[in-house]
């Protein structure tokens, strides 16, 4: 609020604020957001270039870029990205599917809830990585334990989110359905489903984020391809530029997957009164 106009009167304030918002359009705001990392990267580049720092353990951006470029040009990067994406995709599909099913069933059938929910809550208290040794014993060291670990990681937030969303559906809206004598399936389709959709999508996003978290863990436990393998390989052969290239790839791929999920589901929740719209 260093703008003197904004301090004078409330009306002037909002006018000034909206004008500032107009000037700082979406593009400008995004530019402001990348300013800090850009300056830091440039500073490090100069520092290493001038010989003030060796950059051996933290390579400058140019070396990381070169490593990324080399990986991409050789086609190796895409192979690793593909392997990671397939694991996350499978784990997410199984975990989210089971989470939605279990959440919907326990939220609607009290008997099942009393039977199953305490056990699931107890399992949830186990840090998911603790399953790794068991999964390796059960499923070997190939793809199955990795997908299973990711699925477990995705399952819990989705299960909790869906069950909570169904349990907190506004009874008042359900009564609107009852007044118009909707059948059980129609009530589920026309009132419950749309009412739980936003919270479900949030849970799916959380689940996807955890999917990426667990794919790293899964690939670190031994893999011959995948972005996590690049990390491990970089560590074993002292290639920090490759590690950072893999980290950047993880960030980009994770963000892209999240953006895709949001874009695919946005039309379903267009009606929602989100703060984002008014910001």
């Amino acid at each position, binding site marked *: 609020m260093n703008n003197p106009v904004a301090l004078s009167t409330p009306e002037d304030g909002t006018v000034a604020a909206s004008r500032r918002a107009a000037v700082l359009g979406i593009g400008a705001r995004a530019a402001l957001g990348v300013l800090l990392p850009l300056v830091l990267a440039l500073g490090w580049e100069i520092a290493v270039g001038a010989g003030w720092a060796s950059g051996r353990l933290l390579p400058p951006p140019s070396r990381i870029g070169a490593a990324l470029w080399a990986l991409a040009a050789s086609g190796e990067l895409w192979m690793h990205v593909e392997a990671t994406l397939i694991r996350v995709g499978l784990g997410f599909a199984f975990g989210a599917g089971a989470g939605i099913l279990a959440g919907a069933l326990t939220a609607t059938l009290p008997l099942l809830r009393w039977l199953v929910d305490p056990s699931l809550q107890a399992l949830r208290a186990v840090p998911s990585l603790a399953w790794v040794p068991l999964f390796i014993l059960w499923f070997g060291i190939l793809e199955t334990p990795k997908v299973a670990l990711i699925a477990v990681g995705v399952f819990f937030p989705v299960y909790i989110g869906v069950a909570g969303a169904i349990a907190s559906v506004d009874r008042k809206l359900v009564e*609107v359905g009852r*007044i*118009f004598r909707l059948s059980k399936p129609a009530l589920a389709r026309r009132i419950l489903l749309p*009412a739980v959709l936003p919270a479900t999508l949030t849970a799916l996003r959380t689940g996807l984020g955890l999917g990426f978290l667990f794919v790293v863990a899964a690939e670190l436990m031994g893999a011959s391809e995948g972005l996590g393998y690049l990390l491990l390989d970089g560590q074993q052969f002292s290639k920090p530029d490759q590690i950072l290239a893999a980290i950047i790839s993880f960030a980009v791929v994770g963000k892209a997957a999240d953006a895709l999920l949001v874009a695919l589901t946005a039309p379903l929740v267009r*009606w929602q009164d989100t703060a984002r719209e008014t910001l």
Partner: protein
Amino acid sequence: MLTIQSLAKTYTDGTRALEGIDLAVQSAEIVALIGGSGCGKTTLLRLIAGLDRPSAGRISLDGEPITRPHPGVGLVFQEPRLLPWLDVADNVGFGIHNLPKSERAERVAHALERVGLAEHAHRWPRELSGGQQQRVSIARAFVANPRVLLLDEPFSALDAFTRKDLHRHLLALWEEVRPTVLIVTHDVAEAVALADRAIVMRPRPGRLDDTVALSMRRPRDPAAPASEAAARTVLAALDRSLRPHEPSRAPQLAGGSSF
């Protein structure tokens, strides 16, 4: 005709919300139920709507008993209760989903026209004011052509000006379909403006008390002497209902009410 015989409702926690309710409402009659909060007005409407089951007594519409939501009975809740994921037109058409699309669209457009919201058909509920939302919910009840329309303090959250406007819209819709209307209110002026009959309720347990006939011709002018006299009569009845009843009934009041 809507008939209610020795209706009672005791909630599971022991609250005697209603007791000994007898009422017959002619078709196309408008009845105002008036009373302080906690005297069972909402409970009575929910029983008639079939949302809750009575503890005793029966309710019937043209001889047909009502035990669950009935196609001939519509309810407008105290809050608009619009579905936020449907636009205004889809909210209005929510209850007539079984009709062919063209007929549905026609009825919805007509009802929106009637409540003065035609140009808002494709907006989201959240983009409407409270009064506009309540008009949508009234339109939603009307498009289903109910024989009995129940309104639970539908205008209590609105300012006096908006309320008068909505009275006009409500009467216009009523003229067209001429349903039996039961409107709950705690506003004497509202009862006098709309109803053929005002019934005063008293609490603990909820019962029907005095009835005041309101036979002024419509449209009514709230400032006309007849309206003012009627308002005074209803107010006097309301005052009486707030005083304790004859001593012989006093022991009954001991029953635990959460009010």
